[in-house]
C-alpha cells in the first residue's frame, strides 16, 4: 500500500475502488453463524435483504428469518419487531443457539440488537452481530461474528486468533490475484470443458505426470473433490494411475465444527472410492494458506511434474512453484477467470453455480467438469 506523508503523519492512500458488486459482509456473517451451528439466524432489517443466500442457507439446514422492517420500521425503529421475532423463533424452532444479524438499515438508524435480546431473554445463547454491507472486505462480516462468538464463549481465544489470521490472509489473496485485484472484472465462463477434458486425457496418454491440488473453501470441497476423483479414475482407466499425485485441504481436525465435519465427509468419500490423498495440505478453512503448503511440497518433491489440476481457490497457489507446469485450474468464480489467466494458468474452467449444489450435502457431488472428463474418456 502506498503511504503518503502529511504533517509529519503517515497516512494510507485510498485503495483501488472496485465497481462490481461483491460478496456482502451481512451474508458472510450468516455463513459464519452457520459454521458455528446456530439453529436460527435472524436478519434485523428489510425483507429482501440477503434473500438469495438466506434461501441457500435454509437448504443447508439452518432457519433464516427476518424482522421485515418496512418504511415504518425505518422511521420508528424495529425494536418491538425484533423482540417479537426472537420470542417466535424460540417457540417455533426450539433452537439451541441463535444468531441475530444487523443490516444496513438497522445499523444506520442505530438499532440496539442487545437491548432486544435482553428484553426477549431467550434461555439459549445468542450471538449478536452488528454488521452492515458497507465494508470494503466482506471478511469483516466473518470477523464481527467471530468476535461476538468469542464474547459469548462459543469459541476459544485460540480459534478466534487462528480464524482472524486466516481471514487477513484471505483478504490479501483476493487483493493479489483474486476478485478484488482490479477495479472491474468482467465475468467469464472460462474455457470449454470438453476441450480441457481432451487435453488432460491427452497428457495422461502421453505418460505425463500430474498433480491434483484441491484447495477448496469449506463446503465447496464437496464438488471440487469430484474433479480429483475424476482425474484419478481416468488415469486408472488409462493404466497410469501412479503418474498422479493428489493434494487436498481436508484436515478434519481444524476449524469450526461444521467445517471439520465437511472435511471428514469428503475424506471418507475419497477413501471409499480408493483415492489416495498423498498430501493433506490443511483444513477446509485454510484455503488462504494451504496453497503455500502445496507450493512448498512441490518445491521439495514434485518440481519435475508436467501438469497440475488446481481446484477451489487456485490463485492461492504461488506461481513460483508451478510455473514450469501446464496448469489447468477450476474455479467457481466467473470473475476469477481473467486474474488466473494473467497469472499464467493455461486453462481456466468455471463450475457455474457450484456453491448452491454443495449446501445441505454430506457426500461428494458430481461436477460438470468431472462428468465431462468421464464422458470424454468413454471414447478412449
Amino acid at each position, binding site marked *: 500500500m502506498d503511504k503518503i506523508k502529511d504533517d509529519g503523519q503517515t497516512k*494510507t492512500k485510498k485503495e483501488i475502488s472496485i465497481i462490481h458488486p461483491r460478496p456482502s459482509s451481512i451474508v458472510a456473517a450468516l455463513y459464519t453463524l452457520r459454521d458455528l451451528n446456530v439453529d436460527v439466524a435472524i436478519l434485523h432489517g428489510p425483507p429482501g435483504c440477503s434473500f438469495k443466500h438466506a434461501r441457500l442457507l435454509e437448504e443447508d439446514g439452518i432457519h433464516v428469518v427476518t424482522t421485515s422492517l418496512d418504511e415504518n420500521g425505518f422511521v420508528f425503529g424495529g425494536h418491538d419487531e425484533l423482540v417479537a421475532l426472537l420470542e417466535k423463533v424460540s417457540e417455533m424452532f426450539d433452537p439451541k443457539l441463535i444468531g441475530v444479524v444487523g443490516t444496513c438499515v438497522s*445499523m444506520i438508524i442505530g*438499532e440496539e440488537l442487545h437491548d432486544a435480546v435482553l428484553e426477549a431473554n431467550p434461555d439459549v445463547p445468542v450471538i449478536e452481530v452488528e454488521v452492515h454491507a458497507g465494508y470494503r472486505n466482506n471478511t469483516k462480516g466473518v470477523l464481527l461474528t467471530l468476535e461476538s462468538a468469542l464474547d459469548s464463549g462459543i469459541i476459544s481465544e485460540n480459534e478466534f486468533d487462528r480464524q482472524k489470521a486466516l481471514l487477513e490472509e484471505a483478504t490479501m489473496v483476493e487483493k493479489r490475484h483474486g476478485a478484488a485485484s482490479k477495479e472491474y472484472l468482467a465475468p467469464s465462463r472460462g474455457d470449454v470443458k470438453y476441450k480441457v477434458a481432451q487435453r488432460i486425457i491427452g497428457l495422461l496418454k502421453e505418460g505425463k505426470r500430474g498433480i491434483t491440488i484441491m484447495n477448496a473453501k469449506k463446503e465447496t470441497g464437496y464438488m471440487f473433490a469430484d474433479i480429483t476423483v475424476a482425474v484419478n479414475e481416468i488415469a486408472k482407466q488409462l493404466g497410469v494411475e501412479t503418474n498422479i499425485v493428489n493434494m487436498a485441504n481436508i484436515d478434519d481436525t481444524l476449524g469450526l465444527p461444521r467445517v471439520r465435519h465437511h472435511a471428514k465427509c469428503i475424506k471418507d468419500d475419497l477413501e471409499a472410492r480408493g483415492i489416495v490423498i498423498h498430501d493433506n495440505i490443511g483444513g477446509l478453512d485454510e484455503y488462504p494458506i494451504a496453497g503455500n503448503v502445496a507450493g512448498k511440497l512441490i518445491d521439495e518433491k514434485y518440481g519435475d511434474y508436467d501438469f497440475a489440476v488446481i481446484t477451489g481457490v487456485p490463485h492461492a497457489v504461488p506461481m513460483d512453484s508451478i510455473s514450469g507446469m501446464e496448469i489447468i485450474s477450476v474455479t467457481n468464480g466467473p470473475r476469477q477467470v481473467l486474474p488466473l489467466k494473467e497469472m499464467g494458468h493455461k486453462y481456466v474452467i468455471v463450475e457455474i453455480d457450484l456453491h448452491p449444489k454443495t449446501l445441505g450435502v454430506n457426500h461428494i457431488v458430481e461436477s460438470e467438469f468431472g462428468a465431462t472428463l468421464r464422458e470424454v474418456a468413454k471414447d478412449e
Partner: protein
Amino acid sequence: MSDNLNEQNKPKVIAIYGKGGIGKSSTASNVAAACADEGYKVMIIGCDPKSDSSITLLGGKRIPTILDLIRSGVDITEDDVVFEGYNGIKCVEVGGPEPGIGCAGRGIIVAIQKLKKISTVQDQCDLVIYDVPGDIVCGGFVAPIRKGLVSEAYVLTSGEYMPLYAANNICRGLSKINTPLSGVICNARNVSREDEIVRKFAEEIGSKLIAFIPKEQIVQDCERDGFSVMEKAPDSEIAQVYRKLACAIMSKDGSVMVKALEDERLRELTR
C-alpha cells in the same frame, strides 16, 4: 476533594440533554472546568455536528473532529483526536456532516465506536461528559447511552414553555430506553416564576432540581472571548453556581426512572 477517585471507581460518565440553544454546551464546559479546578480528571466529548462543545475550553480554537479524520481515510490515533484544554481537560469533538446531508446520527455511532477503539483516556478520568445535540431525533443520538457508555443523564431546561416541552419529551425518550435521570438543571432565561416552575416540573416527573443557573451577561462575555466562566471570571457569583453544580454531579448518584408529564399537565404548570 479526592484526586484518586478513579482508583476504586469507574469514571462517572454523564450526558446533558435539553432543547437546542438552551445552554447545554455552556453548562457542560463550565461544569467540566469546575470539576477540573477541584482536581478531578475530566473529559468532554462533543457529539454535536457543529462541534462547539469544547471551544470555550480551548481558548476559542476548534480541534479536528473524529469524523473529519475518518472521512479523509487516515489511520487515527488517540493523539489525533484527544486534545488538552483548560486545566488538563481532555477534549474530543465527534463532528459530522453539513446540515441537510448524510446522517449525523450514524456519524455519532461510528465516531464513538472509533474513539472506544483507539483511546483509553475515558477510563482514566473521574468524569466524562457527553455533550449531545438538542433533541434525540434518531437512534444515533442516544448511542452514547445505548452503547453502555453513559451512566447518568441530566436534562437542562429554562422555565419557558418550549424548553420544558423538549425536556419532557427527552424524559419520555429516556424511560423508553430504560435510562434513569439524575437530575434537572435550570438555565434561567428570566421568565416569571422560573425557579418554581422548573422545580415543580422536576418533582412531578419524579426527579429533582439540582441547580438553578441565573441568567448572567458574564457567561456570554466569556464565551465571546472563547473562554469558560471558570477560566475567565473565577470569582464571579455564577462561577460559584457552577462549582456547586459540579459538586452535586460528582457526589452520590440520585438517578431515578422518570415519568414524563401529559401535555395538558405541562401546560397547566407553566400558566
